């Protein structure tokens, strides 16, 4: 049940992110909802499941937008692992922390892509990257994170409730 619903979330997000969301881009920038989902999921459920969701998300990205498999898979896997570690340390009903963590993960993700894809090839325009790409994405991303996290949180609550009744003895 959980696996099916999580797979469905990842799948629907991928479809929407590649088709519909570019229409809502502001100045060509739209937050990476896949990354927000991986981070939120890791925060809600811990490292292991965060890493699994990361593999799923990254694998889809690899299949469709890279000519080889592995880059995005490894990247999202690491993000899932990394952010799942803080699962036990905060109240997940809180909205400020997910926003902060998603902001941190977006910064990390974009810096990694920027360094591996551009700086190594000698094409780094750091000011353009910081102010024209990263900053708008962070602001827009923070706004998108709240409803997205709320949806994932609700689904997770519901699933946990179901699982609890399933294993109840009386």
């Amino acid at each position, binding site marked *: 049940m959980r696996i099916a619903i999580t797979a469905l979330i990842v799948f629907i997000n991928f*479809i929407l992110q*590649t088709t519909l969301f*570019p229409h809502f881009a502001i100045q060509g*920038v739209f937050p990476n909802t*896949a990354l927000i989902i991986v981070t939120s999921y890791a925060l809600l459920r811990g490292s292991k499941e965060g890493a699994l969701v990361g593999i799923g998300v990254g694998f889809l990205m690899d299949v469709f937008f890279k*000519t*080889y498999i*592995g880059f995005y898979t*490894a990247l999202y896997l690491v993000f899932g692992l990394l952010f799942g570690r803080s699962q036990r340390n905060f109240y997940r009903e809180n909205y400020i922390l997910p926003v902060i963590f998603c902001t941190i993960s977006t910064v990390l993700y974009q810096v990694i892509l920027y360094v591996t*894809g551009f700086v190594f090839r000698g094409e780094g325009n750091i000011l353009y990257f910081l102010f024209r790409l990263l900053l708008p994405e962070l602001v827009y991303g923070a706004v998108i994170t709240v409803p997205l996290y709320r949806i994932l949180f609700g689904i997770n609550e519901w699933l946990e409730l179901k699982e609890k009744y399933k294993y109840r003895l009386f």
Partner: protein
Amino acid sequence: MQEFFLKHKKHIISAGIVLLVLVTVIASGKKLNATLLESAIGVVVTPFQDLTTGISSWVDETVTSARSKTDLKEENEDLKNQIAELMEENRRLAMYEEENAKLSSLLKIAQRYPNYESVGAKIIAKDPGVWYDNFIIDKGTSSHISANMVLIAPQGLVGKVLESGATFSKAQSILDSRSSVPAKSVRTGDLGVVKGDYTLSNNGLCKMEYIDGDAEIMVGDEIVTSHLSDIYPEGLAIGKVLEIETDTNGLTKYAVIEPYVDLKHLDTILIIDKNNAPAGKSAAPAAETAETDEEAAEPEESNAGTGVAE
């Protein structure tokens, strides 16, 4: 078994990550057709992307058509005038074509701009990130699409196919920072390479690099693909020069190019295969094309006058 996994969890996970990174490093740069697994996933995913793109463009169309009904009459009038003008011009050009065909058959020159057979395709998904300008089209190896085929729109060059699966292909537009297209300016013949640049691609522009410092290229010059490419056929329109700057090394110039195709709002494209041009037109043997030309008075001399009415 369970214990072994629990005990060495960290090692297993880190080994997995290292393995993925290694695969990435080893496999990068290879241009193959999509594997069976990728194709299989494509078969599942692409119909949904097709559907969503279809719905959003339908909504777009409905909204605009409701808004602009009054404009349509005006536009219709304009278009009618334009058609009349174009018909006139077309007739004139057809005469030129006939003359050109006659003269070149006299000179025995092969026709320079062959007509490639083209396949239409739809763009169904785009790379969500800001860095790259890749997209997915809805035709694959089952429609005989393979890597390195060239994508065009009626106005000019769009990009090329990177890799194709059974029902879909990954494509790269000329705005992508990994794409480079050998190009030249039509007026002066100056050579260069049109590359994508992520600082420009958000505005739908790209860059032509490695132009000679003495080149007499000017703002407004038309840029087409050059003869130096294995992938792109010669003479495809790319765009026009928007501005010209000298590189920091002072030896070469670069130009900012505005592509003729509106790459940010593109939904249908044509795919052409450079290596599969119809032989009759690219080699231009006079007799072969003349067979299809019913109205040609002198079959030996007019080889491309198919469209000539009067």
